[in-house]
């Protein structure tokens, strides 16, 4: 087990999967000669050459759709969006084609494609470059949506995504690229899609979350611990497919739930989770389920306003205390 950055863990996953399967190729803006806008693809051009590590023009709709076509006829494209903010231009290809062609053709074409890149806010990039985009994709049947929060999860889940025969939207965190953690160096270290991971165990309250927000949740849990409150922190890791068993297990254990997500509250991922918990575990709840999300506004530029708009450990602690009537 080596300590790697999230960025290097992703790089390792790409490298291993490209070595393993000659049909895997990486395409996107600046992925080759520039070594990747966030250096996730560093060194891949040197190892695999320009046929398999391909700089695209700035044409998200175009190369997104090219990937869809290549996947329909048996290649396994990994399409990098410099950030998911730019993927809106490709949304027609992702939702109308990639997510539907298997169904519309009644199974004649598989869609073994990964669309990947960072999602969510970084630091003071303002509204068009700071948004969590998961919900646009989880909404559509046919999409699988993966949001790793640690280097090990990033590696194991990206390998699973590349090997999967369906469309996988793989959403990284810009602010996570430099984060470090232990990562298995086993080439067959693959984390199945749809399996949540309990990142911290506790019995007083459940903090359920995904993606970058696990770090906010863990920070909140550490603060709560100092006050004698033990939080179960469940990282969903993939939000479609969804590990409902793990959710129901933690609900049964603590009877109190806070959902933390980086995106907006209205029709967000948390809204879906809340709905499912109340349908399936209403009797297990001792309090309403609360959500901590980004403020329901476009992200402002000013540093102080941006901090106010983001979900924070303080807001999560406050929500947990409210549930515990403290």
């Amino acid at each position: 087990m080596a300590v790697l950055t999230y960025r290097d863990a992703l790089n390792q996953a790409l490298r291993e999967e490209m070595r393993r399967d000659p049909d895997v190729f990486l395409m996107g803006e600046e992925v080759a000669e520039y070594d990747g806008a966030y250096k996730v693809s560093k060194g891949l051009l040197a190892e695999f050459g320009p046929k398999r590590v391909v700089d695209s023009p700035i044409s998200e709709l175009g190369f997104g759709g090219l990937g869809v076509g290549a996947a329909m006829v048996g290649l396994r494209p990994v399409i990098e969006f410099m950030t998911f903010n730019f993927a809106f231009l490709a949304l027609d290809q992702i939702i109308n084609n990639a997510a539907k062609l298997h169904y519309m053709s009644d199974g004649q074409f598989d869609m073994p494609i990964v669309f990947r890149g960072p999602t969510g806010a970084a630091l003071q990039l303002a509204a068009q470059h700071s948004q969590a985009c998961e919900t646009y994709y989880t909404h559509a049947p046919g999409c699988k949506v993966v949001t790793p929060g640690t280097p090990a999860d990033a590696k194991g889940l990206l390998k699973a995504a590349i090997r999967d025969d369906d469309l996988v939207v793989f959403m990284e965190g810009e602010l996570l690229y430099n984060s470090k953690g232990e990562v298995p160096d086993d080439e067959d270290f693959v984390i199945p899609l749809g399996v949540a991971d309990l990142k911290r165990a506790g019995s007083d309250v459940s903090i359920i979350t995904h993606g970058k927000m696990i770090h906010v949740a863990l920070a909140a849990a550490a603060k709560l611990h100092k006050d004698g409150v033990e939080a179960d922190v469940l990282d969903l890791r993939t939000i479609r497919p969804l590990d409902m068993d793990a959710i129901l297990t933690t609900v049964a254990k603590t009877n109190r739930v806070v959902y933390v997500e980086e995106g907006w509250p209205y029709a967000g991922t948390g809204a879906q989770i809340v709905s499912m918990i109340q349908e399936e575990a209403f009797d297990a709840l001792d309090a309403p389920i609360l959500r901590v999300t980004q403020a329901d506004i476009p992200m402002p530029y000013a540093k102080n306003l941006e901090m106010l708009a983001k979900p924070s450990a303080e807001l999560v602690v406050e929500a947990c205390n409210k549930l515990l009537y403290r």
Partner: protein
Amino acid sequence: MAETKTKKGATKPDVLKAYGVSDELALELMQDMLVYRRFEEKAEEAYAIGKIGGFCHLHIGQEGACAGSIKALREDDYVISAYRSHTQAIAKGVTPNAVMAELYGRVGGASGGKGGSMHIFGAHVRFMGGHGIVGAQVPVATGFAWKIKYREEDSVVVCYMGDAAVNQGAFHESLNMAAVWQLPVIYVVEHNEYGMGTAFSRVSLTDMQEKSGTHGIPGTSVDGQDVLATYALFRKLVQEVRECSGPRFVNLETYRFRGHSMSDPVSGTYRPTEEVERKKKEDDPIVVLRDKLFSGGILDQEGLEAMDAHARRLASEAADFAENSPVPGPEALYRNVWAEVNPHGRLFFDSRRRD
């Protein structure tokens, strides 16, 4: 193909020589066009009595463009199109029965009843759909061509679109990439002059043939009502592209004799009835070829009638097949949303289905 009598008199002009087409091939093209015409007329009839639902866009009037271009392809070449594609599917090898059953929404349909008129698929014959968003099939076609080059194969992709598609960003992004990477694809605009009810001249200041030049792709115009000229051009272009000389663009000039879809009138506010009537009279691809074959002594009235009877029979059999094919059972509802349903996690969020 039906037996036909040919009477080639020594004094008749050689009407096929200019195209480099044999008598047999010319007759085959005639038979194909008749099949497409009768098939679409049968679909029109079935739509009128409620057997077919949704949107239904007919190819009547454009049979020459379809037959002439696809006839130049090999089995392992790819064809992808928009939503006016029943006859292109048949031309590429999907059976008329499977296409008609798809229009009826039946199990025996090309897409198991899940696609309908706009989404006919035939993976086994490399008919890649059947796409409903204007221009969205163009990047996908470019992806097929990418794979051909990636795997060093020698297939060719033919990507059809209507004239309105060239104003989409997807069109220009795709042509640019195909040119930069020299991909084996022929982008074909079936230019029937109207994007739904909007005349092309109202939404473009430049001519169709110029649309590819800015991307460095050679463009050619051809009269799609002349099936022989269409075939001759595609035979040449397909060979060029197969020999790795990069993408091509074709302005295939044609005309639709019906409304944009079954719910529209044939003519009306956007095009005068006289225009449609004149085109039907002077520019019907079946009549154009018939006149050539008659004057060359390659076909006579009796032979034509036999071919037409065969076409009518196929259309009628397709309708019978569709009628007798069952509707999809409820078990089909959740099938094939995903290819790979791994054992973990819930994929569906719906009280009707829990996975």
